């Protein structure tokens, strides 16, 4: 595969795009879960949306239902407090990469790329840990004989009477696209030489 040549113009456009995508991922929901059951169908399905700094959705109803399931619902984990700083810092570097002269912005764009990679890896790890914790660190007021469970980060799973569907939301997709664009900006050879990764 041959990446397009990294001209100064392309580098700046890429940096601007990454900046915009990071801002979007700060604002938009990153990930969601949708829960359906015979008595929670159509408009009445339950939703949870995870943002960079908060969790929203049908939390009251989930908390009420949780009396029978007894799962651990962490809606105030330290990651929700830390994430805005991480996103903020990434955005600052993305802005530097976008507005410094291209010759001097290479380091900033590498930091952004690395930051996005780390954010995605850490975010997914923390999310998976929370999902594991939710289904395993259960209180004593649980439904009898209900096995521990781990909801997937992506995909569907039957948990008690609910089928749970999870997927990235707009903010999550923005972060993934930011990863791709900043990867391109970082690894594409500076013009006029073209580095060919297919070899």
């Amino acid at each position, binding site marked *: 595969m041959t990446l397009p040549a990294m001209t100064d113009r392309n580098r700046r456009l890429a940096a601007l795009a990454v900046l915009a995508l990071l801002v979007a991922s700060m604002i938009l929901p990153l990930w969601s879960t949708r829960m359906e059951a015979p008595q929670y169908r159509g408009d*009445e399905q339950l939703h949870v949306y995870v943002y960079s700094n908060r969790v929203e959705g049908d939390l009251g*109803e989930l908390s*009420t239902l949780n*009396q*029978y399931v007894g799962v651990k619902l962490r809606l105030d984990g330290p990651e929700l407090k830390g994430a805005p700083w991480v996103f903020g810092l990434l955005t600052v570097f993305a802005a530097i990469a976008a507005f410094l002269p291209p010759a001097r912005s290479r380091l900033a764009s590498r930091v952004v790329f690395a930051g996005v990679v780390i954010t995605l890896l850490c975010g997914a790890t923390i999310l998976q840990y929370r999902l594991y914790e939710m289904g395993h660190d259960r209180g004593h007021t649980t439904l009898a004989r209900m096995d521990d469970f781990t909801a997937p980060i992506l995909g569907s799973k039957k948990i008690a009477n609910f089928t749970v569907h999870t997927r990235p939301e707009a903010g999550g997709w923005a972060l993934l696209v930011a990863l791709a664009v900043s990867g391109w900006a970082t690894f594409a050879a500076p013009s006029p030489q073209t580095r060919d990764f297919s070899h």
Partner: protein
Amino acid sequence: MDTRAMRPLFTALLVVALLASAGCRSGDTGSTDTNDDLASRVYVPIGQWDKYYAFLSGGQSGGVFVYGLPSGRFIRQIPVFEPRAGYGYANVPGTESYERLRATGPTWGDTHHPILSETNGDYDGRYLWINDKANARVARIDLSTFETKAMTHVPNLQAAHGIAVVSPDTSYIILNGEFRSEIPRGKPDQRAYGAVMAFLDPVSLDVLFEVLVPGNVDINDSSKDGRWAFATVYNIEKAVTVEGMIQADEDAIVAIDIPQAEKALESGEYETVDGVKIIDPAKTKEKVLYVIPVPKNPHGCDVSPDGKYVMGTGKLSPTVTVIDISKIDKVDNTRDAIVAQPEVGLGPLHTTFDGRGNAYTSLFVDSQIVKWDIAKAIAGDPDYIVDRVDVHYNVGHTQATLAETMHPTGEYLISLNKLSKDQFLPVGPTMPESQELIDISGEKMVLLSEFPAEPEPHDAVFMRASDLQDKVIQVEELAPEAVALGEDRVERVGPSEVDVYMTAIRSKFGLNEFTVKQGDKVTLRVTNVETIRDMSHGFALDQYGINIALDPGQTREVTFVADKPGTYWYYCTWFCSALHLEMRGRMLVEPADADADEVVQR
């Protein structure tokens, strides 16, 4: 003759006779459809909704029954003039519904005619009104919650029978006082007997004025342009016995000219009796009342959807009298406004419409619905009868879908039968009332199905489900006085008065217990803080006769005196969750002689 040789022939004849009789029974439906065909036409698949809401009056059950059509599935009862503990309706002193019902009269009612609010001559899905014939009351039900929200007693009338909205925009609710008595009620004096039609504000139910009408005012309706209020009148004789009431050959349909009545009011031509302005048409300079003679003791009074005709249905006469509304104030003799008087059958009681020029009249004595062509009847064409179908048995009201609006759908009609006799499994000498659903979409009527009801629907109205279903709220908005989650508390507000504030949400009450002194007046306010639909909770208290029901989001208050010491569990009566049985708490009533200082308030 060898009789043994004839046995096979007898047997064959017997079988044929039995088959023939069975065939006659199914032939009553008026169609050649098989039972499977008929069943498929009323079957609503699981999880799907009926096409129509049907609101049936509850008669002496005092409420309104809600069914779905075409399935005939009973959906709920709306309690109005009778307490209904299951819904926490008017069953406990101190609740809003109880106080409102008690303030207007006895705790039972006899509901006859449900009517729906209209805008531009079509149902707008806001309100349903229902009369209480027994106690001269009217109630308004809010269709966003299907709950009774207003109720009033109407002075100066007895037996609040006919009730109608004044079309096309529900400018008034009109209510007939059927029984004549002295006005105002006081020393019995037959010479002072009278009957009125009352005009009410649709929302507040304030009685704006009443008009004196000769005879017994029975059923009513309005013209589609809002000008006329019509009523059938019997007992022009002013008798007080059955025999006396059927002497005259003619009674009447009366037409009240509403703008003229309003003018009479403006010019002060009324007398105030029991706080209500009564217009006596005999004393006004405006011509408020027109009397159109019809055959003796008419009953139904129905205006055609196009607003051209008002029809008086005969009862003792086998006819329907068709009156051209536009002629009423133009002719010298009101008799000349009658444009047809078709014979339809024995005991005609009510007439309804399909919007395609046909009328359908219920025949009480014949136990039939007869379909007839209005234009042909007016033109004198002897071939005006289109079809007849047998119903089971003794039909009173009949009503076609949206027939009271300016745009009937002409799809279904129900026959509200007074007797069901052999139609359902026997459940004692008194059998349920029977409703039969008839498809009127074709030339011939097809009897589709029947469904029973508690005593005793008189009349029905229908709404397209699509016109109402989205207006019905699923979760009530929290009222300002709602108790918030976490703010559950007990407050002693006087030496022997305690206010208790409590929430309910699966699967607990906000207070696991509260303690009061024997003799305390307890005011208990409970809010259901659920946010999803159908998650109702109840609050029932042992030995105190208390059960309140709470829709999601709803707050209700009840007041009682804790006059019995001991432990009294309260529990949730609406099955809500897997821990429903555990959803309870204790009211601890300390004996009166205990030291007040030891009373713990939690």
